[in-house]
């Protein structure tokens, strides 16, 4: 909990019980206006959304209605029935729940409130969970998965019957994922247990507050009901304006790449100048690289640490602890540190690489100086020239207070299937009632009855047209009109598989002696986990960077990857793992505006402005609403470079579709590469000449109809869809993440879902799970909606430049060719290469053997 400033407001204390007034007085504080406003609205029975920047006393505000009520709640007398949970607090992170327990405990103790506060997470021992069921605390701090488990228990209704408030922390981050869908369904269930239940949502600034306001309360109210369909809104604006600068490096800013290696000495200088610096990067590989580079120049051996999601948990906890004790001078981190855990005295945030979204930048900068009234200080370090433009755009956006949090998407049917089974595990249900209840959750307000019935059918017997599994049904419709689980084992399996977080198959990375292959000894300590997909591309002796070290790959055995130290060597294989956010639509537009307006180049570093001037000279700069296409020959190939600025995902999808079309048009395309800013396709045929002859015309090539049949045809076989299907299959409970007494390895799951996908697609292409998979892929991996918006925007606005040679603007993406692995589609070619190598090495007669 943050320190309260002295705000003198005499009326503010009116709604506060006496012990609170005294406590504020003793501290020399006054409650803040939004805290009192929230309390008043809550006391009048309403649900509330509080949007406030970090350091505004959000947490205390969220709990004030509960604490003031609990202060006067009559104590239970001996012999009286036990009292249930009064307030449920839900956060996206276990660590946050633990943090809140500590921070809330302090005022509760000082005020002298008879309130019990406990956490319940995946780490809570089973005896404590059982005790919590018998003697619930007043305030339970937990996560969305734990709520799903509580709901699936037979005593759920009784456990929650006294519930008054649900406090939802970091709501903006919860609502955007499938976890949010599951949570929304869970809250709908709680509302049906306790009709007057009030929600209090705490959120950072978002683009569309009304979406969150609807999310908090019941949608599709029954006819005649007068309850509002949006929660009350309280917005706390301001805080001090952050001081953000873009590093104007004395070094040359590179054309391409993401390392920002050129700026290391300048970053180090800033670390030395500040007490504690938080360095954010976008990917794990960037984190590893930056950490390495900083230690290379760390002549003063400052304590600089590394933190990302793949590192061993114990290692991460040590870093977090050191951070809390202010024992570190700098910490290099990925998005794992994005959320609102309190870290010591961070006085500088350095953002390496472009932030990809204005809201994300604002939140990360909010990590510095957890006090609202002091300005946060931040430096942006663009890793290449396009990122300079993007940083500039993000910076302008942050000053203007622009927001570009993603719009909410409809709830997934796979998540709904999980919830339906969970409800059945808790208590028998009537389909009519559950359908109405589900539709009160905002992500499922769209749901129609036939779809819901198909989901129930899926949960029961798999929902197949071929009715072969009736006798194996997991839930059954009884004569009394209620659906019941057919067997207690079903509930037991459900509990082991609850949740929507799917782990990518990953292997432990363990130290061994060089050359031992791990066979002689079991090896040394575990450094963390790495995705299997990356490790599969390594061969013995390859070096790569992980956990801040250069490691040599020794081999894989069972579920472990053995590595040895390779100090002093260069990491040969770049590690692409870790999340990479696509450029937000908002920032993309800002970048196009900057390009279109030479007046705004004045704010750019000179070398970057020069680059744009060269472009204007040699080719042309894209207009704000236009799509620039350049074609030029190079070597014995022809290149097409498009500049949509719609983010890597949308560009990848576009690249897949365009190469199909170009192939049909006879251009003989060979490959493509996509970045956040541009797309390059190379071919044997002269695409420039083809477009000039309008065979095909660019208008026809970029026609929106590519999102129809071409998309379907490509998707059908795409590895992207298989991966998405795997997630849907796991979340929906088609296959299990865990089975009692048996842990499946990621490998086995992957193989079988691919096979299931093939069989299902050819025999029942309209199955509900394939429907869910396509919806997911369109929204997530493919960014189809964004691509569709772009294609409709550029109708009749395509600008074609047929050049004799590469343009300055094209240099960055041309440098990416060959560096980025192109996924999935050309496996046959690789096999052919391997077979040919064999033929060359051994002579043709051996192969034909």
């Amino acid at each position, binding site marked *: 909990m943050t320190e309260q400033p002295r705000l003198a407001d005499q009326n503010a204390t009116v709604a506060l019980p006496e012990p609170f007034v005294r406590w504020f007085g003793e501290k020399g504080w006054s409650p803040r206006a939004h805290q009192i406003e929230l309390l008043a609205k809550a006391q009048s029975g309403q649900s509330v959304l509080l949007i406030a920047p970090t350091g505004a006393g959000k947490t205390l505000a969220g709990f004030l209605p509960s604490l003031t009520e609990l202060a006067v709640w009559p104590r239970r007398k001996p012999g009286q029935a036990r009292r249930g949970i009064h307030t449920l607090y839900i956060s996206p992170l276990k660590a946050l729940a633990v943090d809140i327990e500590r921070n809330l405990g302090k005022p509760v103790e000082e005020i002298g409130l008879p309130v019990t506060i406990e956490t319940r997470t995946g780490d809570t021992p089973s005896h404590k969970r059982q005790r919590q069921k018998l003697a619930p605390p007043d305030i339970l701090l937990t996560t969305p998965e734990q709520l799903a488990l509580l709901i699936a228990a037979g005593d759920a209704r009784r456990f929650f019957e006294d519930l008054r408030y649900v406090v939802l922390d970091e709501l903006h981050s919860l609502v955007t994922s499938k976890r949010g869908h599951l949570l929304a369904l869970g809250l709908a269930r709680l509302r049906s247990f306790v009709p007057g239940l009030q929600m209090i949502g705490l959120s950072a600034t978002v683009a569309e507050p009304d979406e969150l306001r609807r999310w908090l309360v019941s949608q599709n109210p029954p006819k005649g009901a007068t309850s509002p369909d949006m929660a009350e809104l309280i917005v706390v604006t301001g805080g001090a304006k952050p001081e953000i600068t873009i590093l104007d490096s004395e070094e040359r800013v590179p054309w391409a790449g993401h390392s920002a290696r050129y700026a290391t000495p300048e970053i180090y200088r800033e670390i030395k100048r500040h007490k504690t610096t938080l360095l954010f990067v976008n990917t794990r590989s960037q984190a590893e690289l930056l950490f390495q580079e900083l230690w290379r120049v760390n002549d003063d051996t400052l304590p600089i640490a590394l933190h990302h999601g793949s590192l061993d948990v114990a290692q991460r906890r040590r870093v977090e602890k050191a951070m809390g004790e202010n024992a570190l001078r700098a910490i290099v981190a990925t998005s794992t540190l994005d959320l609102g855990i309190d870290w010591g005295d961070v006085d500088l945030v350095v953002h390496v690489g472009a932030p990809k979204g204005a809201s994300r930048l604002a939140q990360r900068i909010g990590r510095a100086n957890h006090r609202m009234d002091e300005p946060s200080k931040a430096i942006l370090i663009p890793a290449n020239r396009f990122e300079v433009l993007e940083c500039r755009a993000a910076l302008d956006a942050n000053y203007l207070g622009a927001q570009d949090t993603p719009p909410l998407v409809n709830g997934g049917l796979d998540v709904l299937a999980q919830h339906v089974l969970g409800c059945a595990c808790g208590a028998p249900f009537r389909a009519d009632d559950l359908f109405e209840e589900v539709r009160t959750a905002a992500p499922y307000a769209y749901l129609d009855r036939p779809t819901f019935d198909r989901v129930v059918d899926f949960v029961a*017997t*798999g929902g*197949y047209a*071929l009715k*072969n*599994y009736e006798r*194996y049904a*997991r839930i059954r419709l009884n004569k009394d009109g209620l659906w019941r689980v057919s*067997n207690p*084992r*079903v509930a037991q*399996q459900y509990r082991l598989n609850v949740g929507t977080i799917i782990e990518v198959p990953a292997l432990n990375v363990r130290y061994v002696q060089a050359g031992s292959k791990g066979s002689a000894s079991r090896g040394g300590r575990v450094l963390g986990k790495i995705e299997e*997909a990356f*490790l*599969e*591309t*390594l*061969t013995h002796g390859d070096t790569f960077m992980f956990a801040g070290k250069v490691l040599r790959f020794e*081999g*894989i055995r069972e579920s472990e990857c053995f590595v040895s130290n390779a100090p002093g060597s260069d990491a040969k*294989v770049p590690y692409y793992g870790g999340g990479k956010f696509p450029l937000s639509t908002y920032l993309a537009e800002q970048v196009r505006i900057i390009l279109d307006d030479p007046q705004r180049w004045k704010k750019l570093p000179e070398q970057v402005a020069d680059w744009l001037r060269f472009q204007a000279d040699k080719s042309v700069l894209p207009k704000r609403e236009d799509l620039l296409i350049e074609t030029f020959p190079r070597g014995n190939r022809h290149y097409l470079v498009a500049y949509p600025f719609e983010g890597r995902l949308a560009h990848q999808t576009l690249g897949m579709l365009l190469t199909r079309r170009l192939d049909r048009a006879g251009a003989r395309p060979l490959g493509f590469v996509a970045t956040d800013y541009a797309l390059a396709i190379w071919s044997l045929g002269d695409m420039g000449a083809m477009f000039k002859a309008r065979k095909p015309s660019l208008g026809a090539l970029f026609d929106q109809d590519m999102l129809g049949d071409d998309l379907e045809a490509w998707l059908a076989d795409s590895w992207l869809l298989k991966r998405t299907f795997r997630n849907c299959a796991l979340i929906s409970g*088609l*296959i*299990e993440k865990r089975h009692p007494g048996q842990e499946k390895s990621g490998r*086995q799951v992957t*193989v*079988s879902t691919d*096979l*299931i996908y*093939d*069989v*299902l697609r*050819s*025999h*029942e292409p309209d*199955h509900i799970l394939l429907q869910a998979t396509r919806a997911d892929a369109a929204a997530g991996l493919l960014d189809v909606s964004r691509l569709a918006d772009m294609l409709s925007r550029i109708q009749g606005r395509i600008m074609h430049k047929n050049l004799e040679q590469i343009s300055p603007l094209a240099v960055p993406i041309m440098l990416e060719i060959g560096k980025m*692995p192109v*996924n999935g589609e050309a*496996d*046959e070619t*690789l*096999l*052919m*290469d*391997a*077979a040919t*190598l*064999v033929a060359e*090495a*051994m002579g043709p007669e051996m*192969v*034909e*053997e």
Partner: protein
Amino acid sequence: MNFSLARASLIAEADLVDVAGESAVCDRRGVLYFPEFRLLAVSDLHLEKGSSLARRGTLIPPYDTGATLLRLQAVISDYQPSIVISLGDSFHDGGGAERMHASFRERLEALMAGRDWFWVAGNHDPEAPADLPGDTVRELAIGSLLFRHEPSKVRVEGEISGHLHPCARIVQQGRSVRRRCFAGDGGRMIMPAFGAYTGSLNVLDHAYAGLFRLESLMAYMLGADRIFAISRSMLRPG
């Protein structure tokens, strides 16, 4: 098109592989055809694996038997063999044949009609499948070939087996490709699993230890249009 003509062209275009002196077509769909005996071998069909898992609460699509039979039908109509050997684990469990949907049973019986059909006993289906024609055998010798489900620990020249579900993996240009494969060293051959829901095990796994002469081990990886013969030095574990 005339069946025998189709067969002739298939054989002409295919990769002919030598097993203990007998010449066989290594079909990219995962079957072996010996022209001399008009014999088709297929392994590890694992029919009714879907319903087998469904019994235990995992309701995966009930179309695996149909999908597997459809593919089997395609190769049988291409080669028109007079002998078919199903190399064991034809059904995923002992009750599989009984559970099979009537329409699938009819389709299977139509495939079997007019040929000699041998069910080699496997570890999943040690007994003869219920109410189906065909002969159930533990192993079968034809010419210099010996067909059995599990490869024996001692070397047997001419042994054709299944059971291990071999696959192979290569890494090219920083990318990894894994495919089912036939594994052979010229003396013995282990066939890939044919069933729609069957997983696979890398030929470099220790389960294969001692089975092959390593210097002549080849993985015949199943491609979209053809077989890719890959030598052991190119193969990667995992």
